């Protein structure tokens, strides 16, 4: 397992849920530390186990802070890319999707996780996941078209 890539995936996932760089990094590191304490060895890490721990820690964080204000650094992410207009359009379309759809799209198309890992992380069957993924992709496509029409 490439530890650095795994760290990036977990951090991206946590940041998506928390939207705060410092807390996201704390939760990511806490996830790794909890796994070390239980397994005693980094080599035996399973990505789905890390996702589950990270997800639970995010839930704990939601409970602790019940407000959902965007942090200052939220808009900074991705601003260094080319085709800024198109990327902002996608971001807008993604923001219009339900949180669960966003989560599925992130895990599948950004973190490139397998259907097995995602279904295990979200606690749903593969079939249900497949349907939800197709639905999320459809909604995103529709959202993008709507954004295009507005412009």
């Amino acid at each position, binding site marked *: 397992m490439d530890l*650095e890539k795994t760290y990036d995936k977990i951090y*991206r996932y946590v940041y998506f849920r928390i939207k705060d760089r*410092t807390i996201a990094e704390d939760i990511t590191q806490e996830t790794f530390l909890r796994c070390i304490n239980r397994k005693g060895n980094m080599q035996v890490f399973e990505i789905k186990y890390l996702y589950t721990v990270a997800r639970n820690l995010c839930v704990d964080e939601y409970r602790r802070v019940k407000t959902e204000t965007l942090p200052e650094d939220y808009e900074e992410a991705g601003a260094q890319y080319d085709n800024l207009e198109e990327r902002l*359009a*996608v*971001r807008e379309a993604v923001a219009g999707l339900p949180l669960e759809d*966003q989560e599925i799209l992130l895990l599948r198309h950004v973190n490139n996780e397998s259907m097995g890992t995602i279904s295990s992380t979200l606690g749903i069957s593969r079939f249900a996941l497949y349907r939800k993924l197709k639905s999320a992709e459809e909604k995103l496509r529709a959202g993008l078209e709507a954004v295009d029409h507005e412009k």
Partner: protein
Amino acid sequence: MKNDWKESLKAAFDAPEPGNKKEFLRNIRPREVSTPRMLFQQVQYIRGAVWIFALMIMIFALLGSWKQMEETEDLIPVIMPFLAAISVLETRRSRKCGMIEIEMVTRFSLRSVILARMLALGLVYLFTVCVISPVIAAAFGGKALLTAMRILIPYLITMSISLQVERSVWGRKLEYASLAIAAAIAIAMFWIKNTDSALLLGYTKVIENCGVLIVLVLAGITAFEQWKTINNVEEFA
């Protein structure tokens, strides 16, 4: 999903660069390594010359026994001190090669590295003695245990004195002090065998009567000296 959408999607979910990722990952690398694995790792860092010397002793003993060369029985105890000296030299190689600074910051402590190397060498030498003693004894009509005592006594004397000297002030200054000690022990063994027949008779009698006790005492002293060397390793290095 189209590929260009995927790229845009990645950007949409992009997170700011984490602040201390590298430092965190460096700190959580696994530190626990099993003893056999540690031993195996350290075996690879012991110089080839050490293994070749042990192998040559074994080949010499086996060939000498097979060809019935009478000198074999007398020469092996003379060579053994040099095997001990090489082992002691191996423990101070870190300083000689300027590796001490690097070893001190790696995942293993220098103490554990030296302990593992000593253990690996000790196990191989024990195996060598276990193989050559019965072969020599069978070839020249002696007892395997007595032959083992005659081989081990000069080896253990050299080891215990060399380890003590290596820790002393002048021992640290003199690069090859243990080799000089080995040479002295080897000359003494050679002298006992060839110069004075009364002394040889007395030496043989002592080994026959209380060889096991002498070896046990010497092994105890050597183990104690090694323990002291390991404990003082930072100062020693």
